[in-house]
């Protein structure tokens, strides 16, 4: 029978391990992981966090949940706390997350305020995909997961390379083989998300989510401009037929980012090491869209694993020595599952309550 700590390790591993159907068995004799030093993770209890110099509720929410808006949830869980006068050394509660099936709403900016957004590389497949910050920069960078791609960047893929980007707060783009794409604009102005993607040639899948703001999303090709109004599109521009748009019965962007399986929402992300020690930008990008400050019946283990994934990501996996593959059995629940696909990823187990099941698929 596995200990609660071992259960926690399994749940954490599942967040960044990808590869459905990969079988494996957890070694019950493996060293048990230690919780992060800055907070006390108590089984069956909410997370207790000790305030430090310079902390704000927004910064804590961004670090632990990947969403600054969850500062409201922290304040609500600590009714005696004065957010404007946090006391160093005081212990506060970090509430459990409810990852229902609603999307987070992004607040509009004050009138006249403009925020420049950026893109995050979610996944890279094939031999090589390149990008550079602008046409004025001569050197190209090999694309890697969690690369931050600024507005003005140029991206190109080869015969067998595919790159998936999360653009701004609400758009996913899969740039397929033999393509050249530019990102001239991504910004939030007041209550409008404005995105411009320029496709010189190639094939691209596009998915635009509704996050409570107005969408002004355009794709420019040499012969046509498409205003994206739906959710999933495949676009091609080449010198034979010019511009073409297709529906998405097999939307690969959907298959990579979000996959609907039996009404459960599955998020897929990449398994490469994060460039950010404390947080995976790709996961943070996902969390900004899908995490919600709602109350609900989430088990302590589930809340802990999502929180720790956002905070520590693959560093935690390495520290815990959890690099084996685990099988994943069916998990019933209302929370979102994370399924990681990758060459070396693992499909980790979800356990029920205090008794996670061992073995593989």
């Amino acid at each position, binding site marked *: 029978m596995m200990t609660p700590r071992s259960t926690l390790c399994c749940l954490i591993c599942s967040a960044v391990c990808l590869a459905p159907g990969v079988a494996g068995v957890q070694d019950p004799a493996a060293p048990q992981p230690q919780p992060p030093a800055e907070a006390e993770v108590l089984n069956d209890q909410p997370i207790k966090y000790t305030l430090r110099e310079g902390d704000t509720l927004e910064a804590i929410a961004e670090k632990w949940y990947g969403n600054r808006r969850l500062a409201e949830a922290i304040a609500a869980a600590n009714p005696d706390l004065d957010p404007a006068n946090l006391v160093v050394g005081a212990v506060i509660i970090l509430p459990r997350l409810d990852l229902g099936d609603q999307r987070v709403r992004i607040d509009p900016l004050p009138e006249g305020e403009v925020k420049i957004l950026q893109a995050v590389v979610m996944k890279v497949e094939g031999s090589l995909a390149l990008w550079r910050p602008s046409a004025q920069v001569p050197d190209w960078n090999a694309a890697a997961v969690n690369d931050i791609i600024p507005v003005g960047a140029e991206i190109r893929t080869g015969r067998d390379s595919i790159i998936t980007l999360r653009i701004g707060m609400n758009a996913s783009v899969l740039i397929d083989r*033999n393509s050249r794409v530019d990102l001239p604009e991504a910004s939030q102005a007041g209550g409008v998300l404005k995105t411009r993607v320029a496709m010189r040639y190639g094939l691209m899948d596009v998915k635009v989510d509704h996050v409570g703001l107005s969408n002004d999303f355009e794709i420019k090709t040499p012969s046509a401009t498409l205003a994206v109004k739906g959710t999933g599109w495949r676009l091609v521009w080449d010198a*034979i037929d010019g511009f073409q748009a297709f529906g998405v019965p097999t939307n690969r962007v959907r298959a990579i980012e979000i996959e609907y399986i039996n009404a459960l929402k599955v998020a897929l992300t990449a398994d490469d090491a994060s460039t950010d020690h404390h947080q995976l930008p790709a996961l943070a990008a996902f969390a900004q869209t899908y995490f919600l400050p709602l109350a609900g019946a989430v088990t302590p283990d589930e809340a802990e694993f999502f929180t720790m994934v956002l905070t520590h990501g693959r560093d935690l996996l390495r520290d815990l020595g959890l690099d084996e593959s685990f099988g994943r059995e069916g998990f019933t629940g209302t929370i979102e599952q994370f399924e990681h696909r990758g060459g070396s990823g693992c499909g980790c187990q979800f356990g029920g309550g205090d008794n996670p099941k061992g073995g593989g698929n």
Partner: protein
Amino acid sequence: MRSDDWMKAWCAAAMLLTVGCTRTVREASVADTLSAADATTELDFWDELSMQDAVTNHDALHALMLTFGFLTEDGADDEGVEGGDLDDAGPAGFDAKVAFAQQRGWIGADEALIANETAQVGWIARAICLEAGVEGGLSMHLFGPIPRYALRELTYERIMPTKSENQALSGLELIATVSRVQDRRTGLVSAPRQEF
């Protein structure tokens, strides 16, 4: 019409025909310098090729060899190839590519290609049909993938643009062609067009 006018008209027509049949020789090919088989150089090759308004024989050979996997970083593709390595820069690489193309039947054994001359669509279509296993219809079954029928078949399958076999391809057209060849082989077939 006076006889002089007829003569002038015939001369003009003959000139036009001659011009139409003359291949353009460009100063250089992209593959002259971007011929290495590593991934970065290959991306540079496709990028430069996209900016060419007409593809040369050397560029077309290089593009087809990349597309069908005949150029590998470890040089294993050079076994059995006469005269130099396929990914050599400059004339040596082109000569090796021509020899390879003759071995594969892309061009005739006695057919000579000029490196920087604009490539004719016909032999490119033949090469694609041979390597991609495009069997075509009755004509191709009877006469084989001769350039004319190969091009007609690939045009019908929307793999190549509508052209005659003596015309040239732009860089973007060749990239579109090899992309569609890839899609055909991998099964990445776009969904039927829908109205939006």
